[in-house]
């Protein structure tokens, strides 16, 4: 037993879509859980797996569209070459079954008897529509934990549909970031809900598993993704009430700190972040800058004074940074003990000493991409390695193992389910749209 993977032996049925729920279940898989993606040949989840095809025109015109596909080529089956899919599929298994039919529903309920956790983040009404509500699942397995993760709520007016950007705006996240001169509607989305649901969902499941180990009783958990996210911005919610006013868009300033900014460097469109947490950081910065005359003003010795002169400070600091590279600024200020970093682009991260020195990237073999580096785990532990068995999972890839070994079905039943269309490794639309084998690398389809 590897104590870095304490969920070995825990089986999770993963009905999650898009990023948030799949991220939560991936954290459990990293911790050793047997996470089985319950997928369907009949329903292509385009919000999870992206467009089914790319027209030749899209491929030729929009570089950005191809960002995230192996070798910038979506191929004939883009969902098998997609970073957005793989980044939440690590260490999972996949089976196919059509839950909308009674025969498929029965398979799922058999699985429930052999599982510890079911998790889902679908539209609020989906489990009812499938007749897979809590009472039904619990009747099959008293130890079962059901984690439901609606965007906001499951019932009544709270049963709203939408994506992260909807609900991040509902709790005002874009209202306290961005350029001060632009109105709220022109500020960029924040993209924080998926991440917070991932950790929040995994935490909830583990707390419930711990209890189930003692009592033999599972439970239903409803995690409102929006409410869970709000805990991460509760300081802003509190501050508005105490001060009686909404925060401004701070640009690269800070509600409490000065100087605090994202400054230009000698290289066009390369930037460096510098922040002073307190008066000590400020005096270290002044020393590092060579004690310039403008910094000697006594008013600048306190945070309050520096905040009053924020614009001037930014101008002086920018004049200093814009004569150097970001790396040079970093060297000087790291030596001085001031918080600093160039704004890294993705290529910078690959070789960055932070990630290299801690061996953070994972290396895994991908069926279409070959051997690649992968973003690493969110923490490390002396107990051993977190799991990094496979970088992705493809549709129905583990059908054989799951139908035979987990479910224990005999060949006759498996053959029947295959004939009925439940079991397979291709989407049904692939058979109607494109009769020949759409193996990868074929360039843009359609």
């Amino acid at each position, binding site marked *: 037993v590897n104590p870095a993977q304490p969920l070995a032996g825990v089986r999770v049925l993963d009905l999650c879509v898009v990023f948030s729920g799949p991220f939560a279940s991936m954290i459990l898989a990293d911790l050793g859980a047997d996470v089985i993606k319950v997928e369907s040949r009949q329903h292509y989840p385009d919000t999870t797996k992206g467009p089914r095809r790319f027209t030749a025109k899209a491929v030729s015109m929009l570089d950005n569209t191809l960002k995230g596909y192996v070798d910038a080529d979506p191929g004939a089956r883009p969902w098998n070459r997609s970073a957005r899919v793989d980044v939440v599929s690590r260490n999972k298994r996949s089976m196919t079954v059509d839950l909308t039919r009674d025969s498929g529903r029965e398979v799922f309920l058999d699985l429930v008897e052999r599982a510890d956790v079911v998790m889902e983040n679908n539209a609020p009404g989906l489990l009812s529509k499938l007749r897979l509500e809590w009472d039904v699942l619990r009747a099959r397995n008293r130890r079962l934990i059901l984690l439901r993760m609606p965007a906001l709520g499951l019932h009544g007016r709270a049963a709203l549909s939408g994506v992260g950007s909807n609900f991040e705006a509902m709790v005002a996240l874009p209202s306290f970031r961005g350029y001060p001169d632009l109105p709220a509607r022109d500020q960029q989305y924040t993209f924080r809900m998926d991440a917070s649901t991932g950790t929040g969902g995994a935490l909830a499941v583990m707390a419930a598993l711990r209890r189930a180990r003692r009592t033999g009783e599972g439970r239903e958990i409803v995690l409102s993704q929006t409410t869970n996210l709000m805990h991460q911005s509760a300081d802003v919610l509190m501050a508005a009430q105490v001060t009686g006013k909404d925060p401004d868009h701070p640009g690269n300033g800070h509600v409490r700190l000065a100087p605090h900014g994202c400054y230009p460097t000698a290289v066009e469109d390369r930037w460096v972040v510098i922040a002073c947490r307190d008066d000590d950081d400020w005096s270290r910065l002044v020393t590092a800058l060579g004690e310039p005359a403008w910094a000697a003003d006594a008013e600048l010795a306190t945070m309050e004074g520096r905040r009053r002169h924020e614009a001037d400070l930014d101008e002086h600091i920018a004049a200093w940074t814009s004569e150097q590279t970001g790396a040079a600024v970093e060297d000087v200020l790291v030596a001085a003990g001031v918080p600093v970093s160039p*704004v890294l682009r993705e290529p910078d991260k690959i070789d960055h000493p932070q990630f290299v020195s801690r061996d953070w990237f994972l290396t895994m073999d991908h069926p279409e991409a070959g051997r690649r580096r992968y973003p690493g785990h969110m923490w490390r532990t002396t107990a051993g390695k977190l799991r990094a068995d496979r970088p992705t999972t493809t549709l129905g890839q583990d059908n054989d193992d799951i139908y035979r070994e987990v479910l224990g079905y005999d060949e006759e039943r498996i053959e029947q389910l295959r004939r009925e269309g439940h079991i397979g490794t291709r989407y049904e639309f692939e058979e109607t749209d494109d009769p020949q084998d759409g193996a990868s690398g074929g360039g843009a389809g359609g």
Partner: protein
Amino acid sequence: VVDVAVEQLREESLLSDVVVVEVASEVAGPFTARLLADLGARCIKIEPSGGDPTRRWGPFRDDVEDIDASGAFLVWNHGKESVVLDLESAEGTTALDALLAHAQILVEDGRLDVDELRARFPHLVIVSVTPFGREGWGAGRPATDAVAYAIGGAMSSTGRPDRPPYHLGGSLIQAFVGSAAATAAMAGLLAAEDGGEGQWIDVAWVEAEAGSVDRSAPYLLGYIYSGLEALQEPARARGLPGGSYPCADGNVVASTYGWTIRRMLDTVGDPELDAVLGESLGNVYRPVGREVLDRVLPAWMAARTKEEITELAQSKGWAVTPSNTVLEVIDDPFLEEAGALERVDAGRLGELVLPGPAFVTPGGPRFRRRAPNLGEHTEIVLAELVPDGVT
């Protein structure tokens, strides 16, 4: 037959039998411990005599500094007990040792000699939460949210192409890191209860962020796969009809793409819009459709409130929601209905609206009590847990 003991246990808080000791300040470490306290763990926060710096961050009622009524301290520390110890002194470290003997989890932010503690407290799950991790290139370096975002996050692709990228605001990076660290602590606890051994979990802010979705890790892997990096996009690059719209009493956000444009047409019910878009769903970028859309949709939005628009759109399955300012959050009817808002007694800060339970289940997380005053529990905790009453 109902087993009374089992019934009682079930109704208790999920972590009511867990003791967490926290030697951390500011946001990431304290939020790690607070999430465990929300679940019912007893969390003993060790503070120096001057207190956690967030006690001075405010904001304060009427702008009057009060170390026992700082808003920032409240948010990241409610539900805990505060014990003041001088960890530079022998008495302080002796008392800490005594507390750790009772604890299952220690959360620290880089100040403790963890190797030494592990040797003496092998049962402990020790969670270090620091900007760059406790080993490696950046160990010991300071950071802020913005610095960590610049390294681990997708900051380079924020903002407009002709301007600097910008940071997130609030404490969103550190708070997310805290949630990851609490999850890690929970995993460590399960392992310790299984195998009897603790472990040292090393959480680096920049790595937790870099390994997360839906921007940081996807953009990083996207680059590894495609060789194309994420770029700043021009405003509204995604185009209409999605995005933020002003309405009669604020703003709404519409998520509209592909075939869901049909739902928008059903909601708005405008014959002209139907005529130009109805037969070419998904192709709103045609100039004629775009011109009509730019005229009709903003006018339709402007004539209605956030609540009206949300209800109409959602009844047709169109994903439109209010886009609130922070103060508007408190009055949002949909958040209210969802139980996302909870009126709490914040002690000298008065009554405040804070987020409701992060998830709902018997024994689940809740706001338990206001944040502790500095050293409020020093005497009682030391008398209870420290043999010979070291003080």
